[in-house]
């Protein structure tokens, strides 16, 4: 249990983030757009846990941030407006080419 979510819920959301970005690959999506889209499947999802999941997936190397040339100070761009896309490693996990115990159900 982390922040009121079960391990199963956490895995579900993280998996779905990967699958969603995989469907749109190689396009990038803003975090806000991604969350609004996922709300149709996870209506009770909240921003803070979602942001944590996104940060986790970035640190894992499955998702990477895309810095637009419009962002004068990328560090100060709000998370909701940041762009993310799947990495090659993330694509492999989403396609089940490689497994990750932290994401497998």
């Amino acid at each position, binding site marked *: 249990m982390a922040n009121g979510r079960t391990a199963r819920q956490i895995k579900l959301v993280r*998996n*779905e983030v990967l699958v969603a970005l995989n469907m*749109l690959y190689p396009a990038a999506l803003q975090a806000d757009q991604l969350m609004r*889209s996922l709300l149709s499947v996870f209506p009770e999802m909240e921003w803070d846990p979602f942001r944590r999941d996104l940060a986790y997936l970035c640190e894992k190397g499955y998702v990477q941030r895309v810095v*637009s040339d419009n962002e004068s100070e990328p560090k100060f761009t709000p998370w909701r407006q940041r762009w993310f896309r799947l990495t090659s490693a993330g694509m492999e996990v989403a396609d089940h080419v490689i497994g990750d115990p932290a994401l497998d159900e």
Partner: protein
Amino acid sequence: MTVGATKKTATKKPVRRKKSAKKRVAPKKSTTRGADAQGDVTENPLQIDEYRQRLGAVGRLMRAALADLDTGQPPGDRLGQGAYLQVMGRAFEVLDGLSQTVEVDDLVKISKVVAEQRRAELNHRKLQLAADLTTERTCETSRSADGESGDTETIELPESFGEIVRQIYGTTLAADLNGAGEG
């Protein structure tokens, strides 16, 4: 009359069974990650399948229509990436049903971004051309000067020369961009 009534009820029942059968069969077809998971977060397991199908269709459309605009991998050339991301983002929102219409403000914003990108691109090329021309002229003058003395060796430009050119044209570029942003 009673026979007719029984026939009606008899014909209605199989229809109901078919509907329920469809609902039960659909999750079994799925082989994708997490599609069989249910209960904790999603009330209806079909939602994930439907969601993925919808996103798949959106992805195919976006790749077919906008893939050529991709400027390459993120660590590469970032020029034009802002416009590409804006267009992709808006296309996704509309196709995924996050917003039903494209508002005029959005179109204005996107067209401004595209115009600024184009302007920056042109200025970047101008800067490169100017730098190349300056280098060529300097080399020519040094050659003609050396021709009188009979020496054909080229004189290297001072290290700070490139920086000076960059500063001069860079200032112009920044002023142009600011002007475009205000306009």
